[in-house]
């Protein structure tokens, strides 16, 4: 039975137990003189039985499915030929993958190699046993849970409280998933980073100026000195983010000011959604635009001026990233500017200030904390942006501040290090997690500061 079918059967059982539980509650009620004599409504009893039926079974199914691949794979160890082990962990994974594919495509009979055939047969058996065991366990749990709950249908059973307690617990666990996610992120990047820093010193990683992870592929050179200095990546990220902000802040801020202070209602009603469209375009589209339209245009424009512009220049990636961030800056600034009380504007007009004087000298200074918070959020976004730089910025870790040259960024390197075939435990892949840790810490700090500043600002005018 497939997992989907099993889920459907469990669901059906739960529905059936609901109906049965409710009718049982009615019959119990008749003995005691009507529904009013029961503590809870019949449907509460039904719900109680249904939950007791479905929840244990669902827990078993989810847990089983999560751990099944790992467990089955470990059972397979004895069936893998010694020669494969000797060839390293990578080939073991490949071998297992191969067997898995063969079993999935029901092609065991076609296998020539007897060892492989035996292993595949074993895998097929294991999978069969596992799924059978799961069905039996899950259904047993469902039935046991339901019958236990059915016995508890009595006049004085607090069924509603019972159900609500379960639902309450469910709500709390859902709210905690956010915490678990953060915890998961921290743990996953931290663990791999620690393993990386055991091979490459953290000082070298943070202060080294030479980045060439490719050398680490050769076993004798793992962690060889000078190849994991991340400074060029940090500087590249900063350069591109800086260019992005140079584009996004003036355009975004002035758009927000115009929309909030000058634009008539119809203009506002047209322009705001258009800017929102700009915000809704996927980053991969911006990346394509940067790589195939903006970069060649900049290159040929540079050529007419006699400048040599790299085809993967930081300028192209940064400028397009800036365009992407314009609506972000503009909508955050818009919120902040409209939150400045009208009385402050009136005070300025009352003294004879013109509109632009009021905006520049009264409204903007008053809104400044909020605007700065918004810009910090935008910076954090620029630093973490991936697709534009992957497609339009280069891989060359140049240490330069020239926007016409190619630079690389933290996110580009994470993607390059983790896509493509390689062993998972090499310094190269671990380096990606170390970069991820840096990225997470920096953006987290920016976000915490920015959100705090913005919240304080809001409270000031509420």
């Amino acid at each position, binding site marked *: 039975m497939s997992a989907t079918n099993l889920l459907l059967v469990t669901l059906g059982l739960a529905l059936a137990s609901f109906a049965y539980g409710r009718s049982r509650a009615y019959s119990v009620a008749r003995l005691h003189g009507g529904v009013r004599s029961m503590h809870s409504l019949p449907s509460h009893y039904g719900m109680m039985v249904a939950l007791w039926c479905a929840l244990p079974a669902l827990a078993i199914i989810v847990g089983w499915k*999560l*751990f099944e691949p*790992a467990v089955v794979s470990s059972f397979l160890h004895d069936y893998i030929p010694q020669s494969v082990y000797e060839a390293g962990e990578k080939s073991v994974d490949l071998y297992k993958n191969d067997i898995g594919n063969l079993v999935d495509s029901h092609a065991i009979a076609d296998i020539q190699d007897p060892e492989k055939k035996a292993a595949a047969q074993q895998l097929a058996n294991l999978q069969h046993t596992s799924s059978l065991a799961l069905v039996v366990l899950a259904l047993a749990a469902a039935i046991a849970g339901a019958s236990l709950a059915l016995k508890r249908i009595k006049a004085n059973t607090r069924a*509603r409280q019972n159900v609500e307690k379960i639902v309450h617990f469910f*709500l709390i666990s*859902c*709210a*905690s*998933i*956010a*915490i678990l996610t*953060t915890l998961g*992120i921290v743990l*996953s*990047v931290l*663990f*791999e980073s620690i393993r990386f820093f055991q091979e490459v010193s953290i000082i070298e990683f943070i202060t080294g100026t030479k980045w060439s992870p490719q050398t680490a592929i050769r076993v004798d050179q793992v962690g060889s000195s000078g190849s994991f200095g991340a400074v060029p990546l940090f500087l590249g990220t900063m350069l591109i983010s800086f260019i992005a902000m140079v584009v996004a802040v003036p*355009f*975004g801020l*002035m*758009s927000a000011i*115009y*929309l909030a202070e000058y634009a008539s209602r119809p203009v506002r009603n047209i*322009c705001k959604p*258009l*800017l929102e469209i*700009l915000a*809704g*375009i*996927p*980053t*991969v*589209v911006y*990346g*394509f*635009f940067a790589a*195939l339209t903006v970069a060649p245009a900049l290159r040929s424009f540079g050529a007419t001026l006699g400048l040599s512009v790299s085809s993967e220049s930081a300028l192209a990636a940064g400028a397009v990233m800036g*365009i992407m961030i*314009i609506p972000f800056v503009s909508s955050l600034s818009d919120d902040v500017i409209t939150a400045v009380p009208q009385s402050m504007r009136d005070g300025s007009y009352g003294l004879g200030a*013109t509109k*632009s*004087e009021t905006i520049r000298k009264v409204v903007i200074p008053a809104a400044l904390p909020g605007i700065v918070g918004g810009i910090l959020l935008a910076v*954090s976004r620029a*630093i*973490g942006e991936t*697709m534009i730089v*992957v*497609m339009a910025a280069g891989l060359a870790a140049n240490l330069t501040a020239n926007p016409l040259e190619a630079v690389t960024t933290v*996110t580009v390197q*994470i*993607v390059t290090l*983790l*896509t493509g075939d390689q062993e998972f435990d090499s310094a190269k892949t671990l380096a990606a997690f170390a970069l*991820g840790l840096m990225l*997470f810490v920096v*953006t*987290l700090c920016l*976000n*915490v500061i920015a*959100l705090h500043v913005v919240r304080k600002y809001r409270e000031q005018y509420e």
Partner: protein
Amino acid sequence: MSDTTTKVRASLKKRYAAEKRFRFYGITAIAASIGFLFILLFSIVSKGYPAFQSTFVKLDVQLDSATLGISETPTSAEMRAANFGGLIKQTMRERFPEVSSRGDKKALYQLISTGAEYQLYDEVAADPSLIDTTISLWLPTDDELSALIKSDADLSNPDSIVTRMSDKQIAWAKSLKDSGQLEVRFNRTFFTNGDSREPELAGIRAALMGSAFTLLITFALSFPIAVAAAIYLEEFAPQNRWTDVVEVNINNLAAVPSIVFGLLGLAVFINFFHLPRSAPVVGGIVLSLMTLPTIIISSRAALKAVPPSIREAARGLGASPLQVVTHHVLPLAMPGILTGTIIGLAQALGETAPLLMIGMVAFIVDIPASVTDAATVLPVQVFLWADSPERAFVEKTSAAIMVLLVFLVVMNALAVFLRKKFERRW
């Protein structure tokens, strides 16, 4: 006249000039931002629209069983081994009998797409009685020829054409065109095929299905969890440190770079739980973790917008706190919650980076049939095609982007519609 009056009067001209300038900066900024949007859309559409058409060549194919190397009533194994490619080449040689040298023949065969033989196979497999008859068929052409015909270039003047095709090939194309054997039609292949190394055979069906499965998982996970979390935080959570931590945490998660979620998916779901790589189920889990904060935040806003008087009224009738929420507050907040969910899902649909981390960046030819099959999604397909050297993939990429944008527009329009239709003023 007072001192103030003179001084103010003297300053007026300059100040009004500054006012005008400032206003002009504002208009420029907004016009430029919207201009960028139109340049972007224009560059995509102008590059992408030819991909929705492709060129077909009409050939009279004599389905000679001898050339195909099959019997008159072939078995399926025979059919699979049949030499349809050779048959097409022979047909082309017959059409252009003057072509004799090896190099020229090769150049001639290049005009026809490698997909032509599969189409021929499908035709014959569907109706074996066609064997040993002559049928007239529209077969796909190679992408270079297709681009040439679609561009409406002057074929009699080969020097004026920018193409990788040789002058001879252009002359053959002219001959085919003049005899009415070339036709530009709607490119169905683009919507029915998976990925391919040949641009004219590459389609977005596999990526679309991958996106659909991934989004299904994302929705199934993120919607109930986010709504439950929002209900808890808005209606039941006590005001204490823990709740504060959860709130701050959710707001921060919303601003964590998406690629970090990819690292989480790789480390936890792929390497720790050994879930299948490249599978929509893992992609869906990662994307739902990513969209959760967005949906939670908008769901909370929707719940908060329901006036307290409704809760008080329901509670006054003896409803338990949970009944108040499920019977009264939640139905009223549902349009707002759905709007937020759709916007969150639209974000997830356009997301690329975290999916690269969990291996959904594979070359997928087969249409995925379940959430555990290897798959890719539409934005990743865009990323893959954008990297391909063939010129024809540029138009495919742009066309795929157009399809992606259409889906996003539809989703956002739905969200706007929901908001407008069910918006309530209390």
